[in-house]
Structures are given as C-alpha cells and as structure tokens.
C-alpha cells in the first residue's frame, strides 16, 4: 500500500499545510514575481485600489442588507431608518455611496493608464477586455444601486436608463420590459434591481475579477514599450516591496473615503412619487453626465433615427471601439498605431470631462 511521504520541512503546522496546499510553490512563485520600476509605476496602484474599494462595497453592502427592504412601500423608509436610527448606519451608507463613486473613478484612471502605458498589447488582449467588462459591471452596479433608496432622482434616472435600453435595435422593447418588470418603473423594478445589485452582478463581478487577476498573474505587469526597447528596466520584488506600497495606497484611499463619508454624508433626497413631474435641475451621477449631456444636445431626429436611438447607437459604437482597442491598436505587421490610440484616449477623456462639466453646470 502506498504511503504519504513524511513531512520534512518546517514546523508541524507548516508541514501539515504544505502537504495539503502546496504553500511552498506559491511562496516560490511570489518570491520571483517582479514589478517594473519607472516614472509611470504610480499608475500600477490604481487597479489594486479599485479592488480594495470593491471589498469595501461588499462589506458595507452586507451591513446595509441587515436593515434594507426592497419594496416600493418600504425601501425609502428603511434607508431613512438606517441613516437616522441605526448606530453608525449613516456612516455605513455614506461609505457605501462614496466608495461606489470612488471605485468608478479609480477604475477609469486604471483603464486610461493601461491604455496610455500600452498594457493592452499582445498577449494581454483578454486582460484588457475583461477589464473593460469589469468597468461595465461596475457601472451596472452603480445604476442598479442608485434606484434602491427609491428617491426622486433615482426614480427618473431609472425611467431614462430603462427607456434608453428600449431603443436597442430588435431586442429593445423586450429588454426594457425585462428590466422594469412591466411597462413602467414600479416596485417590481425596484425588486428586480435589488436582485441584480446584490446577487447577479456581484457574482458576475467576482468571477470576472478572478479571471482578470489570473491573467495579470499569468502575464505579469506590463512594461511600457518605450522603456522595454531601451532594455534593462529596474524591477522591484512583488513581495514585500510592491505589496507594502499597495497597502499604503489602500490606506490613503481609506483615509480619503473616511473623510468624504464623514464630512459629506450622502443625501437621501425625497421619496419617489410616480405622479410628480421630474424636478428642475435633475441630473444623473457624475459618471453618466457626459452621456446625459450628449443626449440632451441631440436634435429630435438624426437622419432616419430618433434622437434616443441615434444617441444609444453612437454611444454603443464608441464603447465598442474603445473595448476593442487591442485589435485595432496594432497594424497587421505588428507595429503599433500609437497616434491613433493616444488620440482616441485623449479625445475620449476630453469628451468625458467637458461634457460632464457642461452637464453639471447647465
């Protein structure tokens, strides 16, 4: 009969764990993992900060679930109860809301830094694609979570967002009905969005995040091509040097988050009233402002398309163009289309920032 090899190394528990988990192979892998050191190393921390904020979202989201009730009759009142009666409930809700916004911001910074530092080049195309999908899921989490307090702005934002989904060619009407749970935004929509927000989207996010991180491990952290061509780029060990620096970045992010959440508690607004008109000055969250302002500027008809169809198709094509960057960013002979990539990135940032500001001040 075959017998297990006797434990040789370390103490009793270390040996026990090594035999069952193969810890030595992992520590061997980590000991050889390096991160390039150059003037753009700072940008490498933003992916990790986004991950940290996702962790904060999960933790504070679970705490909010202890009191939140996902029905049109009780949602607003349950959030009101959380922020007025539950011990530190206001802080937990404020952290959840601020962290969601900071997570979108750091994900955007991470995405643009990867684009400009050329981290999407072969063989990292799938890492880029999974990252863009993660940003899409983050925005979907933001959109579904926004409705949950059942306040006026959330109600109209959901009406607009789901109506826009109804303009998708062919499947639009069915999609809008599926999202709303009927023809109108009602309590049925709220219950659905709750399910998407706390179960479906986090599950997809966790799976995709696992793939994204596995791909980052598989191919290592990318060195910008200009530095790579010079050769001999200095490296720092992942453990402990980069990990400790990343932890400092998390600590700073936590400080900024705590300060924002405590000094500027997230407002609750008025309870949604389906019979009241949309209030003057209504606008979506900052990360949808550029799209919102673009839709505002479009004329009633653009060629044969109604404005919302034209807007949706335009924004959809723009997102698709950006998501497929690794496939058009390199010529068939392997040379990069540097100017096209940088130009597209700069134009995209210019559009996002100017239209967001205009959407905010108008």
């Amino acid at each position: 009969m075959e017998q297990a090899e006797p434990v040789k190394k370390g103490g009793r528990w270390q040996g026990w764990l090594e035999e069952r988990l193969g810890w030595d192979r992992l520590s061997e892998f980590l000991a050889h993992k390096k991160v390039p050191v150059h003037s753009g190393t700072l940008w490498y921390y933003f992916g990790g900060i986004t991950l940290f904020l996702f962790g904060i979202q999960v933790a504070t989201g679970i705490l909010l679930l202890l009191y939140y009730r996902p029905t049109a009759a009780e949602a607003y009142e349950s959030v009101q109860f959380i922020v007025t009666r539950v011990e530190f409930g206001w802080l937990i809700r404020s952290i959840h809301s601020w962290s969601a916004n900071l997570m979108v911001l750091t994900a955007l910074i991470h995405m643009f830094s990867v684009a400009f530092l050329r981290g999407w080049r072969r063989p990292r195309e799938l890492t880029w694609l999974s990252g863009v999908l993660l940003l899409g899921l983050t925005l979907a989490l933001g959109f579904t979570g926004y409705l949950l307090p059942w306040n006026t702005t959330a109600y109209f934002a959901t009406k607009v967002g789901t109506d826009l989904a109804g303009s998708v060619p062919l499947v639009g009407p069915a999609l809008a009905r599926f999202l709303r749970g009927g023809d109108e935004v009602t309590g049925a929509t709220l219950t659905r969005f709750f399910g998407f927000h706390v179960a479906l989207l986090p599950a997809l996010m966790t799976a995709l995040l696992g793939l994204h991180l596995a791909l980052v491990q598989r191919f290592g952290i990318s060195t910008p091509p200009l530095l790579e061509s010079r050769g001999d780029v200095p490296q720092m060990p992942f453990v402990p040097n980069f990990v400790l620096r990343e932890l400092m970045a998390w600590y700073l992010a936590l400080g900024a988050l705590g300060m924002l959440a405590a000094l500027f508690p997230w407002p609750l607004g008025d309870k949604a009233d389906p019979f009241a008109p949309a209030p003057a000055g209504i606008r979506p969250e900052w990360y949808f402002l550029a799209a919102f302002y673009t839709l505002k500027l479009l004329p009633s008809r653009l060629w044969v398309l109604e404005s919302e169809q034209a807007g949706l198709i335009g924004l959809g094509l723009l997102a698709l163009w950006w998501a497929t960057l690794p496939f058009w960013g390199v010529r068939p002979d392997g040379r990069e289309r540097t100017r096209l990539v940088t130009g597209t990135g700069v134009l995209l940032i210019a559009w996002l920032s100017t239209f967001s500001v205009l959407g905010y001040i108008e």
Partner: protein
Amino acid sequence: MLIRVSESEWRAFGATCTHLDCTVQYRSESQQIWCACHNGFYDLNGRVVAGPPPRPLEEYVVRVRGEEVVIARRN
C-alpha cells in the same frame, strides 16, 4: 396633464415625455410644457418646440359637461 387654455377651452396630454419617458410639467412663465430631464419643450398643442423629443405628446379628448371634465382617448 390637464391644461385650461381659456375659460372654455381645455386640453389634455399624456404627461410622459416622448424622448426618454420622464414626467413633464407646465411652465406658466413661458406657457409651455417642459421636460426637466433633457430640456425638451412642447407648446400647448403638445407639439415639440425645442430639445430632443422626437414626437408630440399624446393628446386626449376633453369634454366639459356641466361641472364635470371628461377625458378620453382619441378614437
């Protein structure tokens, strides 16, 4: 929404903006119907005056019978 244009004339429209489904409101200073979501304007006949709405507001038939105002779908 029900608007009394003059002593004897009433008009009724669906209050849903034809652009992206927000609920519109009457603006007395400009005597127009306005959607705050994307700044769409309609006149008091429900026709689009400015902004992105692609179609006029849905209009209803109004009949005044003594003290009662009866609103019905067209056709």
